[in-house]
């Protein structure tokens, strides 16, 4: 059985297949699947850091203040598009071009 420790993924840099920097892992989403509890997606980017601190509102407010807010703050990468077998070096499994479809804004209501 191959196991990984997910805590090592926190804050890791994600590299694309060509070794380009995609962003930093800031959150891991999991959901119930029958009796199991499974990882569904990884949040990579800037805003996700604020999610982890549960301070999206403040974070976004600060970013707005300095006019740093951009739409492409966060990628939601599905579990099967990221290789985490070595948690110290997570790698993107799809081409960078697919990333644009994973862009999202952070959850502000939480």
């Amino acid at each position, binding site marked *: 059985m191959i196991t990984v420790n997910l805590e090592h993924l*926190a804050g890791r840099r994600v590299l694309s297949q060509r070794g380009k920097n995609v962003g930093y892992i800031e959150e891991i989403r999991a959901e119930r699947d029958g009796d199991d509890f499974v990882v569904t997606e990884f949040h990579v980017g800037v805003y996700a850091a604020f999610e*982890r*601190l*549960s*301070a999206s*509102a*403040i974070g976004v407010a600060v970013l707005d203040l300095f006019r740093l807010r951009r739409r492409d703050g966060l990628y939601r990468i599905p579990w099967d598009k990221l290789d985490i077998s070595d948690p110290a070096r997570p790698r993107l499994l799809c081409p960078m071009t697919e990333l644009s479809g994973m862009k999202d804004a952070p959850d502000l209501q939480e």
Partner: protein
Amino acid sequence: MKKLLEISLGVVTSVGGFLEVGSMATAAQAGAMFGFQLIWAVVLGTVCIIFLVEMSGRFAAVSHHTISDGIRERFGFNVFLWPLLAALLVNFLVLSAEIGGVAIALELATGIGFQWWALPVALLAWLLLWKGTFGVIEKGVSFLGLVTLCFVVGAVMLRPDWTAVARGAVPSLPVHDAANYWFMAVSILGASISPYLFMFYSSGAIEDRWDKSYLGANRAIAGLGMTFGGTISIGVLIVAALVLATHGVTQVDDYHQLPLMLIPIFGFWGFVLFVASLAIACFGAALEVGLQQAYLVAQGFGWNWGEDRKPRDDPGFSATYTISLLLAAIPIALGLDPLRLTIFSMALTAASLPLTVVPFLFLLNDKRYVGEHRNGILSNAAVIFIIALGFVLAVVTIPLQIFGGT
């Protein structure tokens, strides 16, 4: 009626917690050298600690978690490690200074050198933690701590020029010894805004089983208790200015000078009152800081903790305060001057503030912890101000500590 009693009890407790060797020594030095001019630093420090204590009490009452719990859970272990190490180090120095304060009081009373008292004092403190309950420690020592009100009485008896006192509450630029002036302002702020105080307060709220119904009491206790504590500090400062400075004693760098503050006012009783104030205030603070070390470690790593439980039920927790007290007694037993240690640790406390205060901004705005009782604009502004102040203090103090040091 019961709530009222609870509130007055809490106020008394926080008075006991506020005044310790740091606030006494820094206020005495400032008064002797600069008259009333540094009162503003005490006022500013008191306002800041009121906000922080109120928030940490509210956080504990609503979420049933302490501030240390919150920092670890919200920010993760790697981030938590920094405030943990900083707080452990600063608390160690402060604990040592408090043990030194009691030891000095005993030296003044008996004539036997302070270093001989360090271990007995630590042992007595340990015994109280070992056998006592939270209530005994909190209330017993704090009630005795009311003896420190003698400084306020003394200040009033000296009939100070109250307009001059009020002027001192407004920050002003020094006319002499600028570097000393700012160093003292930093030390006073460090003595007033002690991380151990607001972190201990949240653990105390859990020990006393606070819930949301205590939010009003919490506000009253934080506001009144810290204001009383600040008033006593100002009393010390006024007495030092009117007694020491007018006698030409402008530099307080020897603890033997301290009892001279009260003797001209109360005669021999002044000597007794000073010794009692110093001993009780420092002993109370030593108990709280020693306990806080154990709270910090136990909460950070998720062990069981509680002062009301038997030591054998929480071996990790009780071992931590045992070791903390023992270690902190060593510098004093080796003869390190407690007054110098105090001033040094107060400035370092101020420098460590950003690490412990930044989390407040996030924790007190987190709905999952505090729900609808989140910070309002005023509280958030206060936290941001204290963080900014903390950064300034850190920038000012760290070079002083590294290159000046003891």
